[in-house]
């Protein structure tokens, strides 16, 4: 069966056919859950937030004017729902240590990360991401993992494009600082 456009299913739902929402959920559930998981870091919370987001989307489908794509609009709602969930739980994120790296130390860390095996690198990256703030994790995920342009991220996070670039820069730097701490800690342990 030929896949129809998002606009088709949206129109069907608005006309009074709720089952037409299922193909939209099926199409975007992985992306929604992935973003939610990056923010909440907890599977149960991520599922709940993603499901809540879809319900919010369903309730306000009539208001979707098509100014942004449906995907961007959905991501916006997933982002705000997941962030609210995290803030509601008042989860603390713990940095391993407060590192401030020089340019050369940053480059050193990047090289060191590049030398690791893919498995080890993923492990360290995941650990380092956990110590970032939810918004920082979200922005890195959207830009590097989901490959979204800055303008789209700006719409999702309700920031200006220049603010997104600044936050990206800071989040990236913080990520490498955390990686530096992790790798340094492992080296110290090995010694």
């Amino acid at each position, binding site marked *: 069966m030929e896949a129809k456009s998002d606009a088709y299913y949206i129109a069907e739902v608005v*006309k009074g056919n*709720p089952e037409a*929402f*299922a193909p939209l*959920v099926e199409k975007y559930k992985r992306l929604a859950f992935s973003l939610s998981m990056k923010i909440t870091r907890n599977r149960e919370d991520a599922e709940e937030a993603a499901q809540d987001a879809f*319900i919010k989307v369903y309730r306000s489908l009539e208001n979707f004017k098509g*100014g942004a794509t449906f995907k961007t609009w959905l991501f916006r709602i997933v982002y705000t729902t997941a962030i609210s969930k995290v803030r509601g739980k008042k989860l603390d994120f713990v940095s391993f240590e407060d590192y401030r790296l020089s340019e050369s130390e940053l480059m050193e860390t990047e090289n060191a*990360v590049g030398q690791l095996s893919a498995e080890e690198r*993923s492990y360290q990256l995941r650990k380092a991401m956990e110590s970032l703030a939810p918004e920082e994790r979200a922005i890195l995920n959207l830009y590097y993992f989901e490959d979204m342009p800055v303008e789209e991220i700006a719409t999702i996070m309700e920031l200006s494009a220049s603010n997104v670039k600044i936050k990206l820069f800071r989040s*990236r730097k913080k990520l490498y600082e955390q990686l530096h701490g992790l790798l340094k800690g492992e080296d110290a342990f090995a010694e």
Partner: protein
Amino acid sequence: MQRLYRKNTKMKKQDNLRAYMRELPREEPSADFTAMVMNRVRLEPIKSAAIYQPLISRQLWLKIYIGLALFALGAVLLRTWFPGNESPELLQSFYRIDFSILLKPFLLLSNALNKLSLPFIGGILAVSVLLLADQLYAKFIAR
């Protein structure tokens, strides 16, 4: 040269991080995720959007235009083929119909427009063009 080197280095760093992030597995939702969402959707009140239809649809307008065009063409052809007194009785009565009544609204509009100043008409035209350009931009470019 140094600026180019810094820019290239920066791009390479971005590419590296992008590649590292892409190595991370994508978390998958539970197998019954869609079913759970749809269960909740079915509890919601069913939507019933008011679908607004124009009084005269586009297709009907098209038929009206074609009808009028055929009528006008027919009148011209009949005059050509059966000019003046040689035409049959039915066509004679047809020629006696005063079609200028159809032109009256256009004449009234033309008279009204002549009273308006040129800058005013120019202003309305400019605003219309800007609105049209904005609509076209929103529809085709800013997606």
